[in-house]
């Protein structure tokens, strides 16, 4: 091998040089030939930059709403940008720090308390007329305001509330001789045992019903993480809920359930739901599945019912979250952004907004919207939707506690559940660890003067 460079395959280098030329040629060609990806439709209007995290079949709905807004007036043009969900929060923060935030963003992550506390968000109530704000407080579903509020201000206006209930397959129930959907959680668990199927190797092939979600079942057992204005983690009722989640798995074998669950598609789109493929006879999910089932599995026979309460528990209970719109401090078009939010959420015109809610199968901000003709027509079309509307006005549905360390709290709640439902720690240990972790965080924040 000579140092003169002659013996390093000259051909190789020539090939590389050729590839480099191809790259340059491609760039030049593409620059000339490719039109702009998304040209502005109304370049003369004031642009309102709107970020959201929807994609695929959902993005189509969002684009439709944006189009409607742009057609409804001639001052603003909302320009939508779909940001990958996994990194959207980070991108948002960077954009705010970089001095170039969007004007409005649709969110569903637990961001309001932390971002509000950091002074990142414009309090939406300050943009409203006092009468408008009073009216909203009076008319909105309580949970909608809970989701969007922090420390006495409204930072996010919900454009869709999610509540969760049971979807079940009547023919599965009939096949095991069940007459009606059970009216107690204990009854449901007994039914689930009869519905569950195994293969020869004792692997689960169909799950009758498997409860999951500490934040879902704590309220159902009459507990919850936020009572009387403060965190309440290690309580007897919460412990009962966690023990229930753990024992439900233990009877089939922790490992066995885990393996079954990891074999299921967890995508958010309609056709990816294991309930459709029949792997669950009873599954808990949000109201948007009604719309999805109608669209993508119209032949499927199913019914809905609230998760039944256990002995000593609460009916129409569970977890709730939602989609909400925020305006970051530093947004250039606060007025335009708020116009868009109003338009979508239906604060000023329930009749018009009702239609948007039905497109996504979303639960509305206030009963004023629920009562509109278009929304009522929708509920008549999908009677299964009514279960969710019933739950919406329930006092027993709880969103994530409004503490500024919401994300950490949620992470630790998930870890506690993870430990308990794998059988690696007892529910009591899991809940004590959770309480200690959170107490430590609170102490730390206090020592900063927060």
């Amino acid at each position: 091998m000579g140092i003169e460079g002659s013996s390093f395959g000259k051909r190789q280098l020539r090939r590389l040089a050729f590839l480099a030329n191809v790259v340059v040629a491609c760039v030049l060609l593409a620059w000339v030939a490719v039109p702009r990806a998304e040209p502005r439709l109304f370049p003369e209007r004031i642009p309102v930059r709107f970020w959201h995290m929807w994609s695929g079949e959902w993005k189509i709905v969002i684009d439709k709403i944006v189009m409607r807004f742009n057609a409804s007036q001639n001052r603003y043009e909302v320009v939508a940008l779909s940001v990958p969900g996994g990194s959207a929060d980070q991108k948002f923060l960077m954009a705010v720090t970089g001095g170039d935030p969007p004007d409005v963003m649709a969110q569903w992550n637990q961001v309001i308390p932390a971002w509000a506390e950091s002074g990142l968000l414009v309090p939406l109530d300050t943009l409203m007329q006092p009468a408008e704000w009073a009216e909203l407080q009076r008319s909105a579903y309580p949970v909608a305001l809970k989701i969007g509020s922090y420390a006495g201000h409204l930072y996010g206006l919900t454009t869709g509330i999610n509540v969760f209930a049971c979807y079940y397959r009547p023919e599965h129930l009939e096949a095991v001789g069940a007459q009606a959907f059970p009216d107690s959680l204990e009854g449901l668990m007994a039914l689930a045992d009869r519905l569950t199927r195994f293969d020869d190797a004792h692997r689960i092939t169909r799950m009758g019903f498997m409860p999951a979600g500490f934040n879902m079942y704590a309220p159902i057992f009459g507990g919850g993480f936020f009572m009387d204005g403060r965190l309440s983690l290690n309580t007897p009722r919460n412990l009962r809920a966690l023990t229930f989640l753990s024992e439900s798995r233990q009877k089939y074998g922790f490992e066995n359930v885990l393996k079954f669950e990891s074999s299921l598609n967890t995508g958010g789109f309609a056709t990816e739901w294991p309930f459709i493929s029949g792997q669950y006879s009873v599954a808990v999910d949000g109201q948007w599945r009604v719309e999805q089932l109608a669209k993508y599995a119209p032949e499927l026979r199913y019914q809905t019912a609230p998760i039944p309460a256990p002995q000593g528990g609460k009916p129409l209970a569970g977890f709730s979250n939602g989609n909400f719109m925020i305006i970051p401090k530093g947004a250039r078009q606060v007025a335009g952004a708020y116009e868009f939010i109003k338009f979508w959420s239906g604060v000023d015109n329930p009749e018009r907004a009702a239609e948007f809610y039905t497109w996504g199968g979303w639960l509305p901000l206030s009963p004023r919207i629920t009562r509109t003709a278009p929304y009522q027509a929708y509920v008549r079309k999908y009677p299964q939707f009514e279960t969710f509307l019933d739950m919406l006005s329930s006092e027993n549905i709880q969103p994530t506690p409004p503490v500024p360390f919401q994300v950490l709290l949620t992470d630790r709640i998930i870890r506690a559940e993870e430990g308990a439902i794998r059988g690696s720690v007892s529910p009591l240990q899991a809940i004590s660890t959770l309480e200690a972790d959170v107490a430590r965080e609170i102490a730390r924040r206090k020592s900063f003067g927060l």
Partner: protein
Amino acid sequence: MKRSYLGYWFISPWLVGFLALTVLPFFISIYLSFCRYDVVSPPVFIGVQNYAELFSNDPLFWKSLQNTLLYAVFAVPLGIATAFGLALLLNLELRGMSVYRTLFFLPHIVPTVATSVVFMWILNPQIGLMNSVLGLLGVAGPAWLSDPRWAMRTLVLMSLWGVGGSVITYLAGLKDIPISLYEAARSDGAGAFARALHITLPMMTPVIFFNLIMGIIGAFQYFTQAYIMTQGGPQDSTLFYALYLFYRSWRYLDMGYASAMAWILFVVVTLTTLVVFKTHRKWVHYGD
């Protein structure tokens, strides 16, 4: 003396970049590590509180450090052995060797984001390819990534998939061993094994050393796979240091705390690297 200034001119691009993009942010981050800072509002000085909290009061900090060390202790030596072994094989003269080299190198250039998703599928306990193959052999495979006892081992095993990069460095090193050395040994009657032990191995120690250092640095910064595949779970069994740092900074908006963590990491990595450097005169052989 004129020359001495010329040298600075030549390295000036790096020097400028170093001062602006490394030293400056570096010192700012030292300052931030003594602050509470949520990225958006101005930092507030709080003294050594972040450090005190980390060392005395944060079990996850210790857990993540322990996980990272565990990973480094297994993944780095295994990676070196695997890569070296593959390089020895790939250095043989055989038709179609360039195809084999490409095959082994491919995983290295495929973006981790893409491969992590593929691996999640392959390692799926119930419907994945891996357990399906093991099932043919009559072995019931574990729940690779969702079992806290297996998740770390799985990530270590997976790291061997991407050794292609270091295989190339070994191959390059092997090519550089002068043939004359082998010829001399052969005429002295040394067998193939003796030649490997007394010529190949010592001559390769600089490359092994290089890979050891890069491996340690890489292991301490291990992040992407855990972020995509396990998010630190199950039960914090794959909560790596860099991952926890990321959570602290971007999920919990605790930049001051995260800066302190980054600083501790930097010190740990530097110390480890220094210790390895100290030993290198004992075992690294520089030719000529």
